């Protein structure tokens, strides 16, 4: 039988002015189960808490009801207090008689009456309270970072710095990501390679970090602290441990006509290749699509020239299984496919390029060694038109564009304009924009510099059509200047399209494996837009970089470090304390219909076949729900879906809530 103690707080006059607290304490005495009641000026004070603790011990109380301020204010305080004397903290209920009574009502008589009802409801719920113990989960003290771009590298470095092992899974043969492909970075114009390649080396040399390049995450099972991950190591036909990265095989390889994705297929590479000089790990990879040995059984030159015998044509894809305590998703972005924008003649003329292609054209490591040349005739362009927001800020119904702003295009276009003008001052540059967005440190100054110092022509308007003229080799750009309200015709040598960024095409597959939510654009959704921006709603999964939304390099790096801090917070614990107020199924009632699993936003519900004892010493296999206590967050969506009432929520059980309803209505 419950022995409830009711403690009514005056909160100075905050409660006592509108609620007759003594009357509430007195009324409590006649509530079934209540064996003690008292009122006190400040229940949350040290002495108030002592009163609660002493009374629990003196009257052998099994439950405590505190009539005070909102539970959001002091529920934790009082739970801690009773826990300190050995009482289960979940045997305590709060009646909110301040925020939801004394502060909102004026009439003392009515206020007192409502306070008594609230007290009774809390007692009714308390009567049904059961002691709850949070589950303890072990933690595997290793982290997985999915994606080896700047976000993944930064996160891995920070986690390793704290002393934990990290694996980076990168689908390409090298880490480095998109940042390694950039020429310069805005607004400081430092050389992208010069800052990213030392980072890559740091990652490569860090003995806490293992790089699993040319690999894919195949399966993720488990939950925070205990993820089981299957990783596919694709066959690269070169032994990573033996290869020294000397590059002899790449020189001798006769198959030199493979489109070079590193330079966005603006030039070609050999079939056995190292993506670029500073690649990490610096090992060769054989492209199985083009290799003569693998496809036709001929050639085999690379094997002959390799001094260390690293080439292995028999290599097979390999699946490795690893355990991790936390996962960082840093799957990055791609440039959206803009081939459907016929009006810009992308695909019709090689001189219409995306900004990332332009970046490669300008790069010293690019196809033309840093000389800005037109891809078609290798001549220097004299007149360049930049078009902003290609595929961004557009209704989805309109050619399947992106509704969001890609965020980085305004700034990199200003960068392109400035860099071009720096090297080739006589170039004419036009930028067609909808808005120029430059929020960021030194961003607007940078853009103003392009306009004012460099004389870049910024035109608010749109480009309607780009027509390549074969005879002249010019691109006729028809645009519209919204400010002057007039049509424009520009005979350009090149057109650069600021194509929208979009999440990596592997992101959705990854999100499904991680049971992490995504938005309609396939960006990972953060657990809270304001307060938990680097966490996925799935516990133990953290987000860094473009996979969560468009952002520039410093933002990506900050988010990566923040995600790393969150990962360290998980790995630093020997055990994770769960939330005890979670769903739990009554297996005897569960009918295995699977409706609850369908509504769980966290994928916390699974089903098992279990043997049950039946009458007459028989047994029966039945499918029943199981809640993963580490994953469940306690929303209760499943409890309503369950027609059998088998699924209930601890701390807010059906009967507890109905007891409150009864007490408040009667």
């Amino acid at each position, binding site marked *: 039988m419950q022995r409830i103690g009711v403690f009514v707080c005056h909160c100075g006059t905050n409660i006592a002015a509108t609620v007759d607290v003594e009357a509430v304490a007195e009324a409590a005495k006649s509530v079934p189960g209540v064996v003690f009641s008292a009122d006190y000026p400040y229940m949350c004070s040290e002495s108030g808490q002592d009163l609660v603790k002493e009374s629990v011990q003196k009257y052998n109380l099994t439950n405590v009801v505190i009539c005070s301020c909102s539970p959001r204010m002091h529920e934790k305080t009082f739970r801690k207090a009773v826990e300190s004397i050995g009482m289960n903290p979940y045997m305590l209920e709060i009646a909110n008689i301040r925020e939801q009574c004394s502060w909102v009502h004026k009439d003392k008589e009515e206020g007192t009456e409502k306070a008594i009802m609230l007290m009774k409801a809390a007692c009714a719920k308390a009567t049904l309270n059961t002691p709850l113990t949070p589950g303890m989960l072990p933690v595997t003290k290793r982290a997985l970072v999915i994606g080896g771009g700047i976000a993944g590298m930064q996160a891995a470095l920070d986690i390793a710095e704290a002393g934990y092992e990290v694996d980076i899974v990168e689908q390409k043969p090298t880490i480095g990501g998109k940042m390694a492909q950039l020429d310069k970075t805005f607004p400081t114009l430092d050389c992208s390679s010069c800052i990213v390649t030392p980072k890559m080396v740091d990652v490569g040399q860090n003995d806490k970090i293992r790089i699993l390049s040319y690999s894919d995450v195949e399966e993720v099972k488990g939950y925070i602290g205990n993820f089981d991950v299957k990783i596919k190591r694709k066959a690269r036909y070169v032994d990573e441990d033996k290869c020294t990265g000397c590059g002899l095989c790449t020189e001798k390889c006769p198959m030199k006509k493979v489109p070079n994705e590193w330079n966005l297929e603006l030039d070609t590479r050999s079939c056995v290749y190292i993506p670029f000089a500073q690649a990490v790990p610096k090992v060769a990879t054989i492209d199985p699509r083009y290799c003569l040995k693998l496809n036709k059984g001929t050639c085999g030159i690379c094997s002959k020239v390799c001094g260390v015998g690293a080439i292995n044509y028999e290599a097979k894809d390999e699946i490795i299984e690893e355990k991790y305590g936390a996962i960082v998703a840093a799957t990055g972005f791609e440039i959206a496919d803009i081939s459907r924008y016929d009006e810009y003649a992308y695909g019709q003329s090689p001189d219409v390029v995306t900004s990332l292609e332009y970046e490669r054209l300008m790069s010293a490591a690019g196809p033309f060694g840093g000389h800005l040349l037109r891809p078609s005739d290798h001549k220097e362009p004299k007149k360049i038109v930049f078009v902003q927001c290609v595929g961004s800020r557009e209704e989805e119904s309109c050619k399947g564009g992106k509704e969001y702003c890609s965020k980085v295009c305004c700034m990199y276009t200003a960068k392109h304009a400035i860099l071009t003008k720096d090297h080739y001052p006589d170039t004419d540059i036009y930028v067609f924009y909808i808005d120029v967005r430059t929020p960021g440190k030194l961003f607007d100054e940078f853009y103003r510099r392009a306009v004012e110092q460099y004389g870049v022509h910024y035109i608010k308007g749109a480009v309607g059509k780009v027509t390549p003229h074969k005879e002249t080799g010019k691109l006729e750009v028809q645009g519209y200047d919204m400010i002057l309200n007039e049509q424009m015709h520009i005979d350009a040598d090149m057109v650069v399209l600021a194509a929208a960024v979009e999440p990596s095409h592997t992101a959705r597959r990854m999100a499904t494996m991680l049971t992490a939510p995504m938005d309609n654009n396939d960006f990972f959704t953060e657990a809270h837009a304001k307060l938990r921006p680097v966490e996925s709603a799935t516990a133990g999964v953290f987000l860094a970089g473009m996979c969560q939304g468009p952002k520039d390099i410093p933002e990506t790096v900050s988010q990566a470090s923040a995600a790393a801090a969150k990962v360290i917070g998980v790995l630093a614990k020997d055990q994770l304390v769960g939330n005890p107020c979670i769903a739990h199924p009554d297996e*005897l*009632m*569960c*009918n*295995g*219909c*699977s*409706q609850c699993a*369908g*509504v769980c936003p966290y994928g916390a519900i699974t*089903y098992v076949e279990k043997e049950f004892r039946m009458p007459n010493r028989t047994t*029966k296999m*039945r*499918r029943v729900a199981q809640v993963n206590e580490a994953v469940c967050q306690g929303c209760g969506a499943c409890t309503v*879906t369950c*027609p*059998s*009432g*088998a699924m209930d929520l601890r701390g807010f059980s*059906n*009967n507890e809530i*109905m007891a409150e309803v009864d007490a408040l209505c009667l």
Partner: protein
Amino acid sequence: MQEELIKRAVELMEDGTVNRVLGWQKGQFVYDITPAVFTSADELKENFVYNDFCGDNLSKYLKDETEKEGKVLVFLKPCDTYSFNQLLTEYKIHRENVYAIGIECYGKADVELLRRKGIDGILDVKNENGTLKIATIYGDEEVPMMEAMAERCVNCKSKKHVAYDELIGEDGEVLDSNRFDMVEKLEQMSAQERFDFWQGELSRCIRCNACRNVCPACTCEKCVFDNPDSGLYNKAAADSFEEKMFHIIRAYHVAGRCTDCGECSRVCPEHIPLHLLNRKFIKDYNELYGSFMAGAEVGQVSPMVDFTMDNDAEPSIVQKGGAE
């Protein structure tokens, strides 16, 4: 048809495909049919029946039958196949333990409709080209089959078999039925009229639980109304509130899973049109969230556990008359 079914059942039993048959068994009268499991050719030949009164949806019995040793043969009318799929979706049937034969159906008769015509003391009923020739102790009667057909068959939703291993007879199409007409009629009444209608109907409920026990969606291990800890424990309706509560909760629990097979109304000894509650849910979610037919496919996501972020109606449309 009956002879054909028996013949095929015997074949399947003899070649070892199945070891028993779930079918319909004749009762004392031509119209009181009960579902039964037959284990031998002799039993089948003696007692198996398939006639105009075989309305029972056999799919629910598969929950228990497929847990037993060996394969069971079941005959499924088109509307029963939907329940069959829904049960599969909910993991209630072990598919490998059942051999399903889809059989054609052109509507079943409801003996109650004959009685309402004043036909009593029925000895035998024969369907001759759409006319029921009825022999009674008072003499012979003739009733067109259409006039004796159960409401759910008049408003048949589908003649298509959505699941079977083998088909006997013809497969049809999903039909454009008028099954929501009565729901619409009720919706157009005033709140007071609706209240009076349902008060009148539900107050006859004797809480015999026949609707629940026959319902292929009611497959809980223990019904909340039988579970003292559920907060809904209720063996008999003590007043009009409890009568309503039972039926609201039951309709809510089967919403999104109910295939509108109409068994609840068929078995109700008080002739309460319970299917009108289920159809209200079906009509609402069809209108609000797009057309959905429980059991049309295995593994469908019911609108009751689904949502859209931007396009779902707000509950306030009920006041505004949107879903009334």
